[in-house]
């Protein structure tokens, strides 16, 4: 297996996540796009860990990223819920009270 096939797949997932995070209005959908980007980074780490034989640090870092992503989704959804309670919609374009 070529190393590049995993890296290019992960690049595609990352760019899709960037597009989704930029165009989606709903806070939940933006968080989903961020999950796509984090998973792309994880795939990269694991591919390099398989490339350097006997080096497990890549997998350990992927585990750390998974734990941090779980924390991020918890706090992020709490923020989206608070936004919904204050604006009665999860539309991020309406959270513009700090806009100049």
């Amino acid at each position, binding site marked *: *297996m*070529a*190393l*590049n*096939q995993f*890296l*290019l*797949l992960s*690049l*595609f997932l*990352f*760019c*899709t*996540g*960037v*597009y*989704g995070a*930029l*165009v*989606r*209005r*709903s*806070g*939940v*959908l933006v*968080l*989903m796009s961020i*999950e*796509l980007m984090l*998973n792309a980074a*994880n795939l990269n780490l*694991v*591919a390099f*860990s*398989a490339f350097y*034989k*006997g080096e*497990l*640090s890549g*997998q*350990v870092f992927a*585990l*750390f990223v*998974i*734990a*941090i*992503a*779980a*924390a*991020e*989704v*918890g*706090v992020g*959804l*709490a923020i*989206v*819920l*608070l936004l919904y309670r204050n604006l009665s*919609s999860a539309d991020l*374009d309406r959270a513009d009270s700090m806009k100049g």
Partner: protein
Amino acid sequence: MGPENVAFAVIAASMVFSAIRVVTTRNIVHAALYLVIVLAGIAAQYILLASEFLAWVQVLIYIGAVLVLFLFGIMLTKAPMRGDNDLDNDQRWPAAIASLFLAGVLGTILVDGYGDVEIAEPEQIVRTGDLGRTIFHDWVIPFEVVSMLLLGALIGAIVIARRD
């Protein structure tokens, strides 16, 4: 083209399709369900890369926990469950240009830098025990920091989301 490459191609094709659907579908619940396919595909790629512990962690945490959180988030924010034309803002073209630019730059670098690098067959199987030994021997302080971070995120999520 060996069987592992055929497996990679099939899984990668379904992941690419589902990832595009996650960011373009007009139904917010469908986006969550397409995200399941992408996450399961990532777990399958981990198995292809011979890291089965991470594959099961991926299934348990992402498909088991994070997706349930997303579905709760969709229901609690009373998102429109049926098709809705209003899920995207009016930045489609700038966003597409930005992500295509990123893909072009990074793709050029990857093809240039790792164009003909192969992942060799593993000489010995890396077991979950070896991974655990690496975590608790070399990375024990970052591991403790991550556990404190999870505790902080737990308390923070409760404090932010509670009604007072």
